[in-house]
């Protein structure tokens, strides 16, 4: 028995698998130590702190990517990934809630990117007004989860109790999906550029409506926005107390939203994957590849496109609602065209049609936006206050115009990022891969034992040395 086990272990070492495991664990440990070190008092005032902590966090999240690519057994990957997401990250987050905030925002955008990926990546329908569905979800809860509904309908029944949040989460999914169908019906006869223009307009229309619907009935409170928005109930607080865990409410909420978003993303991934590997997903991809041929294969174009629109919209609806509750305050500013573009950039950067790609894209773009650019701005400010002068040019940083702060470079960065991606890696960070194991599955065999051939050079994932990459099997 023990001999057999030892033999297995020896084989594993010979296969180099355990080396990978050690490598991955070492990486995670190093990232943890770095983050821990950054938590030391005193360091926070250092000029480089914001940038380094942002990079450290990015490196920490990067371990998930490393796990994804490492040639390890699925179970090991699952355990490692979940322990990072469910244990390590919350643990770090309790000490520094900003990390949780960033992680939650990453999650919100990841779920949106997953939704948009269905529309743009799977079905090939370029939707530039995706944020509209996000707004629909957000305002649905903001109106009924605040005093706003009292003003609009002249009652004093509102805000709804926190418990209603979960019912409304389902409602938001439904309403957003319905809005998707409403938008889809007239525009889905259009193709390509025309569809893009009309959806762009639709996104703006929703924002303008929200911006102006403070009269005749004050439904959205116009540009002032709605505050405060009811948060979901802290039903588990007594349980935590009973366990002896005492945290203040802001930390609890931060954790709460983090886990809530994780659950929704888990659901979104599950949904997207199941659909992808069925006749529904294949029909979507066929439409993307060749609309006419797809229709000639018996695919009802309008119905399948509407399904894609509605499914994508429903993800955004749910996330919008969580966003509203998390932010405590929403106004039309959060739902501009830039947000639609942002989510689209995530999908493109990650890899169109690729589920892990959408998540990685969302992470990269959000961290870049929320942490790295902001970190650079903070750094600049500190340097400015310290009266630093750029040596050769003899330019005092204090004269650096505030309009040119890195945090305001968002659009520039999106642009550069897109151009770079198009030149260097047009298929995205994690390109779409077609399901490759059909044969084995169809014949009811076990998963094909033979190694998959190495991907062509251009397909090689970045960073990873990648021998024996297992197919992106779900």
């Amino acid at each position: 028995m023990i001999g057999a086990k030892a033999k297995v272990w020896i084989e594993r070492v010979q296969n180099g698998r355990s080396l990978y495991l050690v490598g991955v664990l070492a990486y995670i440990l190093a990232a943890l130590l770095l983050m821990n070190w950054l938590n030391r008092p005193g360091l926070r005032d250092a000029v480089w702190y914001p940038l380094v902590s942002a990079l450290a966090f990015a490196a920490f999240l990067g371990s998930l990517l490393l796990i994804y690519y490492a040639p390890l057994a699925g179970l090991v990957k699952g355990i490692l990934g979940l322990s990072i997401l469910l244990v390590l990250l919350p643990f770090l987050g309790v000490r520094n809630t900003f990390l949780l905030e960033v992680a939650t925002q990453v999650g919100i955008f990841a779920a949106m990117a997953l939704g948009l990926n269905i529309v743009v990546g799977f079905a090939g329908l370029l939707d530039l007004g995706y944020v509209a569905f996000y707004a629909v979800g957000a305002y649905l809860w903001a109106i009924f989860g605040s005093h706003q509904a009292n003003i609009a309908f002249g009652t004093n029944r509102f805000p709804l109790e926190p418990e209603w949040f979960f019912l409304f989460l389902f409602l938001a999914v439904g309403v957003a999906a319905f809005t998707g169908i409403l938008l889809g019906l007239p525009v889905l006869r259009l193709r390509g550029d025309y569809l893009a223009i009309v959806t762009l307009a639709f996104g703006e229309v929703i924002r303008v409506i929200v911006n102006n619907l403070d009269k005749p009935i004050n439904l959205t409170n116009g540009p002032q926005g709605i505050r405060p928005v009811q948060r979901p109930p802290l039903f588990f607080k007594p349980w935590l107390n009973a366990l002896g865990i005492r945290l203040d409410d802001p930390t609890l909420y931060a954790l709460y939203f983090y886990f809530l978003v994780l659950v929704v993303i888990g659901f979104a991934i599950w949904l997207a994957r199941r659909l992808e590997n069925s006749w529904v997903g294949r029909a979507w991809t066929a439409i993307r590849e060749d609309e006419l041929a797809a229709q000639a294969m018996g695919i009802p174009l309008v119905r399948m496109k509407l399904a894609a629109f509605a499914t994508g919209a429903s993800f955004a609806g749910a996330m919008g609602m969580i966003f509203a509750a998390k932010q405590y305050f929403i106004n039309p500013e959060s739902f501009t065209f830039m947000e639609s573009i942002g989510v689209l950039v995530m999908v493109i950067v990650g890899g169109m049609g690729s589920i892990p790609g959408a998540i990685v894209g969302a992470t990269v773009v959000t961290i870049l936006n929320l942490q790295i650019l902001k970190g650079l701005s903070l750094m600049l400010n500190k340097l400015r206050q310290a009266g630093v002068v750029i040596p050769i040019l003899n330019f005092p940083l204090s004269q650096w115009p505030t309009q040119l702060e890195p945090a305001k470079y968002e659009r520039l960065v999106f642009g550069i990022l897109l151009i770079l991606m198009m030149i260097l890696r047009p298929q995205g960070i994690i390109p779409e891969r077609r399901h490759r194991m059909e044969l084995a599955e169809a014949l009811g065999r076990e998963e094909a034992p033979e190694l998959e051939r190495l991907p062509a050079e251009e397909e090689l994932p970045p960073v990873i040395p990648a021998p024996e990459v297992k197919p992106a099997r779900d």
Partner: protein
Amino acid sequence: MANLLELRKVTKRFGGLVAVNQVDFTLEPGRIVSIIGPNGAGKTTLFNLITGIYKPDEGEILFEGRSLVGLRPDQVTARGISRTFQNIRLFGNMTVMENILVGMHTRFRASPVDILFQTPRFRGEERELREEALRLIRFVGLRASPDELAKNLPYGEQRKVEIARALAARPKLILLDEPTAGMNPQETAETTRLIRRLRDELGITVILIEHQMRVVMGISERVTVLDYGEKIAEGSPEEVRRNPRVIEAYLGRGVAIGAIA
């Protein structure tokens, strides 16, 4: 025996151009027939009219006695008519297997709920149709792996995938638009044999648009000749080959009659 397909005085105009003019056409089940004609004669337009991509301006199209006019292409496919395209239109970034599974679209019965919860119904159907797709791959004599992306296949193989994809819907009638275009003689012979097997082994009625006379004369039981959108001749390959109008319109243009023999 009732006709499988019947076109009555079908006309299609594009602006001032009459692409198909008052064409009558009947087809009994179990036949292999060809439509020939010079470039721009309206052959592909005729296919597009039958499959619902275009709507006829005049006339009636009946399939198994029921009108096809006004149906969308996907509804026509669901009635039992499949087609291939003149310029291959495979789903390039999907695998061969997936292409064929898309061709089976009308036959999937699993609901979204079945899909999400991977019920036995979903799994069973998926396995069954994948097995059938493998049989189709063997039937058309594809050498490539089912997991290969369609766009990576050589031309001749792509043609075969397209035929397999069209067969996947289990059609009663298949419309092949120049299936041997661009093939070398060996591939052409292979494809000709395949077309005959569609009818002989699967019982599918075939309409063929073809330029290679060797193919047309070799397998079709009846040939219809279009020129400028009009049907100028119809009959057995022998009759058509001897028809003076055909020779004038189609073969007379610098092509020696002997070349088609």
